[in-house]
């Protein structure tokens, strides 16, 4: 099906090239008329169910579609206007819409959440007195958005877990690693000729943490990107910040231990200062039991045991990513789940399968075009299982897991004698030795730069909330679209609930797509950049929690969850609530703050 804008363009194309040249000049249509034989238009295309990469190749070859980007079942590309009708008739194509100019702005997201109404009041609440904690890649503390009107920093502490103390520096107690910078040091650095000699911490070149901090607590005071000062205002622009920079590598942003310590550090600083604090975590992990029993989740829940403490976590971007599969096995029966290993997968791949403690499942692994391995019995650990073709597997099949009493099969594939894991379709056969419960199993794939995806009928987007988002207490943020194509809809990448133990998740949704916020290394007119992901949705909710904590500093995490969910907005996009895609609906900061009594 073509959207109305494409139908309009198709009809105008019939009027002749001059008509399209005129439309292109308005900048409102994603058209290219110069230097091409036939005018071309940029489109977003949703593949029909059951169609994927193979069909995309045919579309490129047969229809002249130039694929520019792909996100799950949504493809961005360019195609000749004269091929649109033909494209629309293909079975592999579900929907085609014109790419529209987007204005990705935090200034649009703030009114969308109704935080602007909270800012103006009465009483006007802008987060003053509340600490916003950011556990992330770090922060560009030089950015104008993180200073008060006198030019002093609003960052109370930075703990960089990557650094080793040098002369005059120290690690925070009791953690004993990394380097801590206090507000006074940051202020000294801001007025020094060589600021980085005083505060050695800096966000990485991507600037994920700076962006996240800007959404939650940036004040937008830097003019930039062609807009005046105070255009890109964050949700809690007068909150103070405590930032912990995780250990960043090419494959990861921090780990569970460093993250738990970071959360503990932020609450400790807040306690010392007698302030309420809300922590934002915009990173996660696909592996784990997804029932709140991972030690990171349990530790976070333990820390959320006092008034004036809150934590928000991104739901994850795992929908349409093939990271989860589920199925049921009967006693004596079997179930086969398949996953596709891409070419060039040369790092170990980890799969994590969880099922009821009352059942007993054994496992066989089959390589592409290979024979099945020997059966791995429940309760056994096999290190260095030789697979046909030279790859190896470590398999740890645990019964009555110490974490939760359930059973787990942990599989790590490694190249072995080969340079990479064999590309193609692999199979895991789960065999029901004893099925005293439901026989239900769930499997997750670890994230990475080049990793397999589940394929086939067992693949599902459900239960894709990332750990620690399946904690029993944290607020988990889904993402929805506030600008451009699909406005009002849930972002297609936003991870879905429920948790494996059947609790509704995520908690609620916030803007997370094409959000403009503070840029690392900002200079001149370039002060902000757009980013998308549930990473961007979470700090909106973090900011809202800060506004609520300003109104009532002794609110507990449970209070905040109740007030946020009971005040959330429902509309035709969200449908009824609660659901396992939107949670309770779209955040409404004004209603949430009003409900604080």
């Amino acid at each position: 099906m073509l959207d109305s804008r494409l139908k309009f363009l198709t009809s105008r194309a019939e009027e002749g090239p001059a008509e399209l040249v005129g439309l292109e000049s308005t900048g409102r249509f994603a058209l290219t008329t110069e230097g091409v034989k036939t005018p071309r238009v940029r489109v977003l295309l949703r593949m029909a169910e059951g169609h994927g990469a193979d069909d995309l190749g045919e579309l490129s070859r047969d229809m002249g579609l130039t694929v520019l980007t792909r996100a799950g079942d949504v493809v961005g590309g360019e195609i000749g206007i004269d091929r649109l009708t033909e494209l629309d008739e293909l079975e592999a194509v579900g929907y085609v819409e014109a790419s529209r100019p987007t204005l990705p702005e935090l200034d649009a997201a703030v009114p969308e959440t109704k935080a602007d109404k909270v800012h103006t009041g009465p009483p006007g609440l802008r987060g003053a007195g509340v600490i916003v904690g950011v556990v992330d890649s770090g922060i560009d503390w030089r950015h104008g958005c993180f200073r008060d009107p006198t030019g002093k920093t609003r960052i109370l502490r930075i703990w960089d877990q990557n650094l080793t103390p040098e002369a005059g520096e120290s690690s925070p107690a009791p953690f004993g690693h990394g380097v801590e910078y206090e507000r006074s040091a940051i202020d000294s650095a801001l007025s020094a000729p060589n600021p980085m000699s005083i505060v050695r911490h800096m966000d990485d070149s991507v600037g994920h943490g700076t962006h996240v901090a800007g959404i939650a607590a940036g004040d937008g005071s830097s003019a930039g990107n062609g807009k005046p000062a105070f255009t890109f205002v964050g949700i809690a622009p007068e909150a103070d910040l405590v930032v912990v920079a995780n250990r960043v590598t090419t494959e990861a942003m921090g780990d569970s231990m460093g993250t738990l310590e970071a959360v503990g550090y932020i609450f400790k600083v807040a306690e010392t200062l007698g302030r309420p604090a809300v922590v934002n975590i915009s990173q996660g992990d696909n592996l784990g039991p997804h029932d709140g029993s991972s030690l990171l989740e349990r530790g976070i829940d333990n820390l959320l045991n006092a008034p004036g403490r809150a934590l928000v976590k991104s739901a994850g971007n795992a929908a349409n990513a093939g990271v989860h599969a589920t199925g049921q096995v009967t006693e004596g029966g079997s179930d086969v789940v398949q996953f596709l290993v891409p070419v060039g997968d040369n790092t170990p791949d980890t799969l994590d399968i969880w099922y009821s403690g009352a059942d007993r499942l054994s496992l066989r692994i089959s390589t592409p075009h290979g024979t099945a391995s020997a059966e791995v019995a429940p309760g056994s650990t096999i290190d260095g299982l030789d697979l046909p073709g030279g790859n190896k597997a470590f398999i740890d099949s645990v019964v009555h897991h110490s974490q939760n009493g359930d059973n787990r099969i942990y599989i790590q594939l490694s190249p072995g004698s080969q340079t990479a894991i064999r590309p193609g379709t692999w199979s895991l056969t789960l065999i029901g030795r004893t099925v005293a419960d439901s026989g239900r199993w769930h499997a997750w794939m670890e994230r990475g730069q080049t990793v397999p995806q589940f394929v086939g009928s067992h693949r599902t987007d459900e239960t894709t909330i990332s750990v620690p988002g399946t904690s029993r207490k944290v607020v988990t943020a889904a993402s929805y679209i506030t600008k451009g194509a699909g406005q009002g809809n849930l972002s297609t990448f936003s991870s879905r609930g429920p948790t494996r133990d059947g609790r509704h998740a995520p908690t609620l949704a916030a803007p997370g797509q094409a959000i403009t916020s503070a840029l690392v290394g900002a200079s001149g007119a370039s002060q902000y950049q757009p980013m998308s992901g549930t990473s961007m949705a979470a700090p909106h909710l973090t900011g809202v929690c800060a506004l609520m904590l300003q109104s009532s500093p002794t609110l507990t995490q449970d209070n905040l969850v109740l007030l946020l969910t009971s005040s959330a907005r429902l509309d035709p996009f969200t449908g009824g609530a609660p659901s396992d895609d939107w949670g309770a609906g779209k955040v409404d900061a004004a209603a949430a703050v009003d409900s604080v009594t």
Partner: protein
Amino acid sequence: MRADKLGSAARRALSEVGEAVGPTPFQVLIRVTGEPGEEQRRQIADAGARVGFVAGDVLTAAIAPGDLGRLTEVDCVAYVELSEPLRPEAGTWPQQQ
């Protein structure tokens, strides 16, 4: 060694380290039975774990791979898992001009 108290990633890492001399300490999370008192913390330290932070019944610690076995044998230690990597949840999206 009480292998049932050890997470799968830790078992895997342990098998990879093998007999290597002076390997880098593992960063771990430990669940204990109830909030640890002085005696429990002493037992954990005696097993070779350097505890960093306590969050109720969950502790962070660094420990040499060779000491993991002793740690799992401490009565108050219920479960030990390797610190797992986390990844950012931002991606790219087509930005039409």
